[in-house]
């Protein structure tokens, strides 16, 4: 199916979805929606409004209608470069909104509100209808995506995979988080990452940034090298290292996977959500499910300056080598052959709910069929060594324990 047919098919699926279900999906994903009743009930006043046109998961135009009330100056078009943070923030919310209801293209009207920054007012699933300047912009976007996808299929090169998973340093037995910045620099193969609490930026999280590779084994060797660098830098060996979704309350951890040499598109994100994030959510320690929906929502991606993109939905898979190897293998498998993967259990409201609520039993029922698809894929043998142990654990319905010290599993000897 080509890009245009997929877009029209997605609109038909959207139109079959009940309005209530659309709103529920958005709310579960952490997106605030102002239905007409809500709009009537709130205080009188003026609010900034954004009309966002999204094509291929990116904004092609953001119109802002401001509060000045001064006639002709009320409406302006945001410039991606000039208003970079504002543009990105609005673009991200609009893209996420559409993706959550199954669309990669469409228009979203947002309005500034007190609680969360912006709420969704309405969605237009087919803003390209008719022969307008806007429809020409959409057609140009689709044409470019189609040629990139065609070229990629023709080239058939292995995508390059990278990662920046996180872990925490914890003082036991009181379970006190020790900032990683005490031992690690901001940058480097083993560095630290920031969170802002009460206006102060602190660096509590350790992050490994191994060199990328198109070979799973090589990428994992790079990861072990990053672990070794971290081990040499973290001189306090009494601290334990924890990973997973949220091993310590209030500090959610991510296992971001980076891809380059593959074109970002909605079907690839949906394949990653259904065939990687969903199985991993079944395996996840139930204690980590509080990470969502603020972090780790479905289809969460960021475009990167190197030309690729980062998939941000997964928790920190450093929780064990088995999980890390499995993630690297499945990510490689999916990104190379996602057009062979057609199941979308997360499109069903019940599975979508189970994912965000961490209801393992409901999700578990769908896992065997997904795993079957993965094992039937062309080229599975290439990834089997690292994928099979993870698949075996998934079939057994096990969960990891994110309270433990990950050093032993990674053969990191304190003081080595």
């Amino acid at each position, binding site marked *: 199916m080509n890009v245009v047919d997929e877009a029209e098919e997605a609109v038909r699926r959207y139109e079959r979805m009940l309005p209530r279900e659309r709103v529920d999906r958005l709310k579960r994903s952490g997106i605030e929606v102002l239905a007409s009743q809500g709009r009537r009930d709130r205080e009188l006043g003026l609010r*900034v409004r954004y009309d966002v046109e999204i094509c291929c998961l990116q904004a092609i135009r953001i119109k802002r209608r401001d509060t000045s009330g001064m006639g002709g100056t009320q409406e302006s078009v945001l410039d991606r470069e000039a208003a970079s943070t504002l543009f990105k923030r609005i673009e991200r919310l609009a893209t996420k909104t559409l993706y959550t209801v199954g669309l990669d293209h469409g228009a979203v009207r947002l309005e*500034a509100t007190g609680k969360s*920054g912006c709420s969704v007012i309405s969605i237009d699933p087919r803003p390209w209808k008719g022969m307008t300047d806007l429809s020409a912009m959409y057609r140009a976007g689709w044409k470019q995506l189609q040629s990139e996808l065609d070229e990629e299929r023709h080239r058939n090169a292995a995508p390059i995979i990278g990662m920046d998973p996180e872990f925490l340093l914890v003082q036991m037995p009181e379970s006190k988080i020790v900032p990683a910045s005490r031992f690690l620099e901001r940058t480097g193969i083993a560095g630290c990452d920031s969170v802002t609490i009460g206006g102060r*930026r602190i660096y509590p999280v350790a992050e490994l940034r191994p060199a990328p590779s198109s070979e799973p*084994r090589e990428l994992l*060797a790079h990861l072990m090298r990053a672990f070794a660098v971290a081990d040499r830098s973290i001189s306090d060996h009494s601290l334990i290292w924890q990973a997973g979704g949220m091993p310590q309350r209030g500090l959610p951890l991510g296992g971001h996977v980076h891809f380059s040499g593959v074109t970002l598109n909605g079907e690839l994100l949906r394949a990653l959500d259904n065939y990687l994030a969903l199985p991993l959510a079944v395996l996840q320690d139930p204690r980590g499910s509080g990470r969502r929906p603020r972090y780790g929502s479905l289809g969460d991606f960021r475009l990167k300056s190197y030309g690729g993109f980062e998939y941000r939905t997964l928790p920190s898979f450093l929780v*064990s080598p088995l999980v890390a190897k499995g993630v690297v293998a499945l990510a490689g498998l999916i990104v190379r052959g996602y057009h062979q993967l057609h199941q979308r259990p997360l499109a069903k409201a019940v599975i979508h709910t189970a994912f965000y609520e961490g209801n393992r039993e409901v999700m578990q029922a769908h896992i065997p069929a997904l795993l079957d698809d993965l094992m039937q894929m062309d080229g599975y043998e290439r990834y089997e060594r690292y994928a099979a142990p993870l698949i075996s654990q998934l079939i057994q319905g096990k969960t990891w324990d994110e309270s433990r010290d990950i050093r032993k599993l990674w053969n990191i000897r304190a003081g080595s």
Partner: protein
Amino acid sequence: MSLSHKHQCREIITKAICGKGRKFSTVTHTVTPPNGPTSILGAWIINHQYEAVSAGDGIEVIGTYDINIWYSYDKNSQTDVAKETVSYVEHVPLSYLDPKHRAATVEVSADATQEPSCVEATVSAGGSSVIIRVEREFAVELVAETKVCVKVCTDGCGDYEDKDYDFGSGDGDYDDLDPDLLDDEL
């Protein structure tokens, strides 16, 4: 890092950007006009002025702006513009700070990457004042003298083709890093 004998490193002292930070924030102001507002007809921010000062682990942006609210009162029979000057101090943390910078030489600057703008203006629940929500964003920089390590070409700046820079990553130290040797345990 190993270097061939042809290349040397030198430490030079230079003025450089030693710290950077960026902060987006949303703040709420309450403006009480002389007449109880019926509805808001317009709300905007003008005359923004600010300066940056060094403050502990970050940079403080100190500034002022005027809020203008065009509102109606007396059951929409009259209109007026309420004006209020707001002053603020925004602490912008540095996401990067060169630890080698010379503190005595520090100069700081700030740039409003997004001018303060009013995104929401509502009549308060009691009906006597107007709640204004303002978004603003600053990028800050800290410039100071610092030491920078540079590679020096001892034989001039001629042809680089035959230079054998070796950024040895010490691969030999990691020969035992084999992911296949790790236990398969969940």
